[in-house]
């Protein structure tokens, strides 16, 4: 519940005026509906008495009020929905920014699995309803009921109690209690639905192995069992839902009956006139509209609480990170992971990484590693032990060796993506750190985003000109493809959809080139390209990185041939180091694979 309150707090801080305005408009809507019926009852009763000649009745004001309420009810309802939704969307956008910052700044490794992302997405969607289906209806119902009770109380306390009492107990307290009681089932149901998904993924991915193992039937049964679990939880929820529904209906009906009896008493005592009595009874009708949105609370609240518990920590971290702090990159060189920087810092180190980081052609960074290591973390990254390596500015080095040997880990270490476990290291005199603009890494997995090609390249260089971007695309032999589809304005879908795998790879490479880092770390840069395209890309790369330091990881001969020095990594250690022209170099080259013909 505290997590949910935190989320609601975020709502309140982000768009306080709009949210409050939405609730007031909701109250106005309810009040108009109430007024429309109540005044109608008042007028009819008054007209009846006047028609019998018992009283003199002014019909002008009631009929004007009826027309007024008919219009305000429509208008207020329409405006309320616009304002509430607009406010909610503002909060949703802000919440997503918070969550992004929270995850981006988090200590946990960058690679969140698709599974976790799917869960996060479900949670965020569940929280969308916090205001629209929980806070706003509850607040509007409470305010309207309080106003109604106060108005009735001026006629008689008993009347107020008789009409508002059942509405509060059955219409508001009841659903909330049921929701709290049902929270655990809502959570169980969510987990059971998730089990359906996970088990089907296993069945789908493992159909061959499962069939051969004779366990496909079991896998189907496991999905069925999860579906049964969902059904069993739902059965329990239905019972509560039934009670909540019945309570909602009875809340209104009991209030009407209460108003009838208490009002008749007041008429008998001469405290209230006939038309006002009719007004009171009919006003109680409006309670139906007020408590109806709360009926589904029993089903929704549990899911919201679960989502809030998982999202609130990310939100808090993100909100804290969002407050301006002097550039996170300005961390001093020696701080990262307690590793001492080898080499000599350049003067003015504080602002060293503050600028664009772009360096003119011909200036590469030196790399120094002394007994550096990376610990095994549950098999996620291949560990490194006692790696010592010195790379001179402008050198081109290829890391070779079997998969899982630690090539990618070594690149990630130099890029500051993994925590070092001891040793000394420096790139251009500074400890590696993610986000250094003078170091660029092309990750093995191509990561592109929704937006235009220009947006993609601007990630590498926010102030880049069209000419710069076009040149980079030409370097990686991608410009003809892009030019034919709208040039730099070509739109990319999520994950770069719209380009083929090989084209995405080359766009990511171009994005790295426009950043003009002094050290380029390339993890299998031409993976998935055919031989001809790969040759053109590597030639373009050679020209574009003239004088810069390049370290690439590869198991392909034509890719590694780019390098003047081969460093062989195996079992987390450097086991060979050879420069072009030596016999060892040739032997290492001979051990690399040929580029396979594309298989699809």
């Amino acid at each position, binding site marked *: 519940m505290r997590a949910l309150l935190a989320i609601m707090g975020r709502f309140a801080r982000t768009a306080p005026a709009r949210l409050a305005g939405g609730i007031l408009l909701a109250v106005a809507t309810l009040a108009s509906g109430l007024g429309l019926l109540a005044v109608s009852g008042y007028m*009819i009763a*008054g*007209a*009846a008495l*006047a028609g*019998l000649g018992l009283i003199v009745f002014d019909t002008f004001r*009631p009929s004007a009020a*009826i*027309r007024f309420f*008919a219009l305000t009810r*429509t208008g207020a309802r*329409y405006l309320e*929905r*616009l304002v509430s939704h607009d406010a909610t*969307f503002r909060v949703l*956008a*802000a919440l*997503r920014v918070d969550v992004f910052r929270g995850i981006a*700044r988090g200590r946990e490794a*960058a*690679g969140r*699995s*698709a599974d976790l992302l799917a869960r996060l*997405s479900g949670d965020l969607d569940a929280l969308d309803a916090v205001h629209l289906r929980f806070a706003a209806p509850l607040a509007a119902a409470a305010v309207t009921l309080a106003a109604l009770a106060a108005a009735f109380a001026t006629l008689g306390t008993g009347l107020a109690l008789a009409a508002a009492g059942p509405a509060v107990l059955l219409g508001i307290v009841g659903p909330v209690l049921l929701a709290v009681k049902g929270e655990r089932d809502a959570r169980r149901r969510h987990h059971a*639905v998730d089990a359906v998904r996970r088990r089907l993924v296993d*069945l789908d*991915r493992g159909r*061959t*192995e499962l*069939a*051969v193992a*004779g366990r496909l*039937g079991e896998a189907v049964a496991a*999905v069925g069992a999860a*579906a049964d679990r*969902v059904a069993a939880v739902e059965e329990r929820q*239905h019972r509560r839902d*039934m009670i909540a529904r*019945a309570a909602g209906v*009875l809340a209104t*009906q*009991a209030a*009407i*009956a209460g108003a*009838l009896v208490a009002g*008749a*008493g007041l008429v*008998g005592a001469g405290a209230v006139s*006939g038309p006002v*009595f009719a007004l009171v009874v009919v006003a109680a009708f409006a309670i139906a509209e007020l408590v109806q949105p709360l009926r589904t609370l029993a089903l929704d609240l549990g899911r919201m609480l679960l989502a809030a518990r998982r999202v609130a920590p990310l939100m808090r971290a993100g909100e804290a990170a969002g407050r301006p702090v002097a550039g996170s990159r300005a961390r001093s060189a020696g701080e990262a992971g307690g590793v001492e920087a080898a080499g000599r810092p350049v003067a003015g180190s504080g602002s060293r990484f503050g600028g664009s980081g772009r360096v003119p052609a011909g200036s590469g960074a030196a790399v120094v590693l002394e007994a550096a290591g990376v610990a*095994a973390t*549950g098999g996620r990254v291949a*560990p490194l032990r006692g790696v010592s390596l010195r790379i001179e500015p402008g050198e081109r080095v290829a890391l070779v060796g079997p998969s899982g040997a630690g090539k990618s880990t070594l690149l990630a270490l130099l890029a500051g*993506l993994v925590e070092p476990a001891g040793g000394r290291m420096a790139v251009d005199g500074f400890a590696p750190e*993610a*986000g250094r603009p003078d170091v660029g890494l092309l990750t093995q997995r191509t990561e*592109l985003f929704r937006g235009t090609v220009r947006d993609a390249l601007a*990630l590498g260089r926010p102030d880049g000109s069209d000419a710069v971007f076009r040149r980079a695309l030409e370097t990686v032999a991608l410009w003809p493809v892009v030019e034919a589809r709208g040039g730099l304005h070509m739109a990319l879908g*999520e*994950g770069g959809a719209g380009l083929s795998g090989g084209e995405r790879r080359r766009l990511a490479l171009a994005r790295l080139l426009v950043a003009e880092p002094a050290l380029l770390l390339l993890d299998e840069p031409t993976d998935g390209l055919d031989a001809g395209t790969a040759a053109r890309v590597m030639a373009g790369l050679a020209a574009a990185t003239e004088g810069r330091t390049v370290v690439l990881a590869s198991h392909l001969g034509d890719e590694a041939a780019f390098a003047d020095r081969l460093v062989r990594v195996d079992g987390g250690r450097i086991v060979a180091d050879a420069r072009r022209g030596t016999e060892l170099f040739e032997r290492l080259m001979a051990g690399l694979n040929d580029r396979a013909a594309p298989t699809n």
Partner: protein
Amino acid sequence: MSGGMRPPDRTIPTAPASARALSVAASLVWIPQAFVLAGAVAGVVEGRLAGMADVASAAGLFLLLAVLRAGLDAWSARIAAGFATREKRRLRRMIAETAAAWSPVDATRPAPGEIALLASDQVESLDPYLTRYGPARTRLMVVPLAIALVVAAVSWASALILLLAFPFIPLFTSLIGAEARDRSRAQLAEVGTFTGVLLDRLSGLTTIRLFGAVDRTAEAIADAGDRIRRRTMSVLALAFLSSAVIELFSSIAVALVAVWVGFTLLGWIGFGATLAPVDLATGLFVLFLAPDFFQPLRDFSAAYHDKAAADALDDRLEALVRPARAGIVGTGGRAPTGDAGPPPAVTVEGLTVAAPDGAVLVEGVSLDVAAGERVALFGPSGSGKSTVLAAIAGLVAPSAGTVRLGGAAVDAATADAARGRIAWVGQAPLALAGSLERNLTLIAPGDRAAMDRALAAARLDGLVARLPRGLRTPLGETGAGLSGGELRRLAVARALLADRPLILADEPTADLDAETAEAVRGALAAAAEGRTLIVATHDPALARRMDRVIRLEPRAAGNGIAPAGEDHRTAEKAGADGAAEVMRAADAGAPSRSGDAAVVAGSVAAGEGRA
């Protein structure tokens, strides 16, 4: 909506008639309630009901009817909810059973995860439709008419007011709703959703960190959110109009009824009463009924949006689950017998496999493998090696031809038992969510010593020793933590542990670096001891290690005739020399054939990738 294109029979049914009837009954209870209440109020106002006892008995009757109404409503909801639960369970089981029968070589299968999402979240989103839509539609057909008739019995003028207002509402709402739908479709394609934008960026978080662009990206997400909000609001501004129209017309109609009743009672209007002059009781009665005349329309307009979810799910079922696909032979259930027996001979005669869309994967393949023999099916991508292997394991039903294991045909009745003798080493082996040990013992359990022996033979002992949690190391949904080569060696270890007499290996060394590939070759060679082994591969070094190489030609594209003049000719050579010869021939012929192979590869390779 796409409804016009499909046959009228909806596969997702609505709530049963009993739920619909009860929900109508619950709504209709309001008519006697309104009658009782109107009489009581009029009695009090006119001073006829002086005693509290009379009022209390009227209130009691009203409450009694209210309990009936609440009971009918809850009962209806209960039936509808139970129906929804059963229907969702049925859909989930149906999806799982259908998906389990699909052959792994069918390239048109939905991507992993699509089916899973369909069965979990998308089926879950059916709830409102299953529970609400049917009752709301029936109420819309019955309740307004019933109320109009009752009102007409009192006052034809009031009934006329209600009936005149009614047809305008669906007209306007459908116009407004259609435009809102078009706009929202255009908008979704253009800007995405709030969550989509976030997930898109999170999926590339490493890159964002590397470019030091966390803050820039946060701003970009905020900007995108702002754009999405503006566009969504422009759609909603229109969509909300449709419910505003309902509100407006119902409010105006209620107001008109109230004014008519009031003016009639004052004697200012002399027409409109049906049977008897309208008095206070009947006037209030009409007023009380008027809002409930419109309530079913409101309910239905809310439920109408639920139908969109059902239509969307139906479209997904149509696209993913209902199309005919190549299936496996048998059920994939556990083999009845315990003893797997001696290494079997494998005979394939005239095997043809065609996908339901007509694509021929292999045609007319025949081969003989002796018991205990080690054979490579050698050929370029697209020659159908993997499909032949899958057919031997009964993982795809042949369109023609037979497969025999140890002399017995593999058919629907025997396939499960036949698979009980087979171990499979796939190109992208499965890592189930669970521990390394669970994955190792997927086919058969084993004690610690047996597991260690299997791991050592598959050359995985070093890796397991390095892992901090050893055999208890969890493997993620996609087998995170193990490389492709390690996963394949795990599959070899699994095969060894299961001690099955026939091992089928599908491209076990594809896409591996030279050293890892060599480790897998060694592991396979060790596993083949005392077993029959068939390997589908285009790796010459692996083929060279086998006793015999069977070369598979790709089908020529277009005319179905291979370059040699015969479909799917197999060339066989015994021994290492023969293998070398076959491979030389393959190398020499490769350039001229590559065009054909690439075309056929389109369908086959995609299927292999998923297996």
